[in-house]
């Protein structure tokens, strides 16, 4: 039997057993249809088994998806305190009915806090759930996707344990940071900043049996609303819209529990029984945007014929740089440097606005192009602009030379 469309031979001579068998199978298959229930069951299995895998664009989903992205997540949490942690702590300073002194007093008195968080983003109908526990002096536990991925961090020692429930693997990390104080390491400096924030009243909201007072504030540049128990002056619900990796995401934090006794075992850095354990080299993370971007551009261009990555927000693409540096589940020194730079750069960029605080223009620039600018940013400490060029040298640049959005 010849296919009339392309002349390909589909079967055999009329009446030969092979052709009869195929024709019979075809005729019987024509009578069969997949039941809708199979489709529904399959979708349910996909959503249940791999909630982090159903999205490949949302940054947080990506971070949670694979072990080495968890390392990056841990690096971000460890270096910058974790986005939700910052927001939750910052909202204490964001409402008008409580003075800074009261806020600071409450915060200093807190021994433990936990909350649930949902993250939804982009066009995704999926929601990521995160349960966060914090305990003085410096312990944080984040359970992502109903405990499927767990990151336990001791910020004081820089030690971290990353558990992947899907693969039942555990990774011990030791991260040293330089460049910025993490919020739980320098609480006094952190709350001095909080005191400068203002909050404006918004509509109250009934949460449970409490009429919570609403306030709108800004937390690290992200619009944030919170509803506060008028009696305790503590938040019952916090909502924030953040932009990470070019994706806008909505965070909602609820079920705050303050000063409840928490088991020390929640923060144990001992891998659970049955987990395959690996220990990676100590990571040194430097919170220096210029240095980290330069590192990433250098490694990427070296492995891609002198081209620079099309985007610095596409974490999935950038993490592919790490693969050649992995062997038997371990990264070599270069792999560690890439992960460190990627984690720190991603963390830094959470708090920067593209076009205003930084710009990335790799089009038409190749490694070695000393006269072509590939990246620029505002150094907020010195209030000057800096640029990185195609040959990876950096220099001060005048604001007038940059396409800064007004």
């Amino acid at each position, binding site marked *: 039997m010849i296919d009339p*469309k*392309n002349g*390909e*031979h*589909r*079967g*055999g001579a009329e009446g*030969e*057993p*092979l052709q*009869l*068998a*195929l*024709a*019979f*199978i*075809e*005729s*019987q*298959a024509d*009578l*069969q*249809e*997949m*039941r809708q229930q*199979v*489709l529904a*069951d*399959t*979708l349910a*299995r*996909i*959503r249940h*088994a*791999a909630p982090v*895998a*159903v*999205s*490949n*664009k*949302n940054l947080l*989903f990506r971070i949670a*998806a*694979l072990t080495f992205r968890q390392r990056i997540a841990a690096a971000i949490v460890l270096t910058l305190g974790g986005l939700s942690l910052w927001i939750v702590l910052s909202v204490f300073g964001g409402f008008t009915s409580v003075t800074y002194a009261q806020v600071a007093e409450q915060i200093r008195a807190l021994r433990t806090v936990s909350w649930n968080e949902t993250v939804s983003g*982009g*066009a*995704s109908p*999926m929601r990521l759930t995160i349960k966060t526990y914090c305990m003085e002096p410096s312990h944080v536990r984040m359970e992502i996707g109903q405990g499927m991925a767990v990151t336990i961090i001791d910020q004081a020692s820089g030690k971290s344990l990353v558990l992947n429930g899907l693969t039942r693997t555990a990774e011990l990390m030791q991260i040293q940071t330089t460049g910025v104080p993490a919020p739980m390491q320098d609480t006094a400096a952190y709350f001095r900043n909080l005191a400068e924030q203002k909050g404006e009243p918004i509509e109250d909201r009934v949460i449970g049996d409490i009429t919570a007072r609403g306030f709108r504030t800004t937390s690290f540049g992200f619009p944030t609303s919170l509803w506060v128990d008028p009696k305790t002056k503590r938040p019952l619900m916090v909502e924030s819209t953040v932009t990470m990796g070019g994706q806008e995401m909505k965070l909602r934090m609820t079920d705050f529990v303050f000063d409840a006794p928490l088991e020390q075992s929640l923060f144990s850095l001992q891998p659970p029984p049955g987990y395959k354990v690996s220990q990676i080299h100590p990571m040194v993370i430097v919170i220096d945007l210029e240095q980290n971007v330069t590192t990433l551009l250098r490694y990427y261009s070296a492995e891609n014929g002198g081209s620079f990555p099309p985007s610095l927000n596409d974490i*999935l693409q950038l993490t592919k740089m790490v693969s050649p540096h992995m062997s038997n589940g371990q990264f070599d020194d270069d792999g560690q440097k890439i992960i460190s730079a990627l984690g720190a750069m991603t963390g830094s960029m959470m708090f920067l606005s593209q076009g205003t605080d930084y710009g990335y223009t790799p089009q038409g620039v190749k490694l070695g192009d000393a006269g072509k600018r590939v990246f620029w940013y505002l150094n907020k400490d010195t209030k000057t602009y800096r640029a990185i060029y195609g040959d990876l040298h950096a220099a001060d640049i005048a604001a007038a030379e940059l396409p800064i959005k007004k």
Partner: protein
Amino acid sequence: MIDWERILREVGPAVWKTAWKVLGNRADADECFQEACMAAVEFSRKNTVQHWPSLLHRLAANRAIDRLRQRVRRRGRESLIDQDQLAAGDATPVQLAQDSEFAARLRSALTELPPKHAEAFCLFHMSGWTYVQIAESLSITPDLVGVWLQRARERLRIVLAGAKEAVSEVKS
């Protein structure tokens, strides 16, 4: 974001049908379809999927052939006779029985082919792919697809010729 609902609604029925054609019964096709989808989820965690229909068809075809092999090992070739209710159409009961026997022999013989030949055969004859589509999906040349298919058909014809003789003996 991977829009699984859209992908499965668009491609799922055809992928499921490929599984049914290879396996010949609904329960196995359902399970095979789910296994293929979960394998696709796993694959997409570590790779960028360029063409979901190709991936799902290939996964379904390979898993269906694996299931055939398991079934033959466990229960013998008789288990490959279509278990869903057979529709006669214009065929006589004798024809129906004969064709059903040929189909069972074909499925059994598929399990003995080299895996790549079996996959190419299923994609071509049961999923309706062209040489070029198979070649692109398997990263080989269309000529090589033709060679694999030719070898697969030769082998299957030998097995089915034996079946024809057996059926003729029964008829006589």
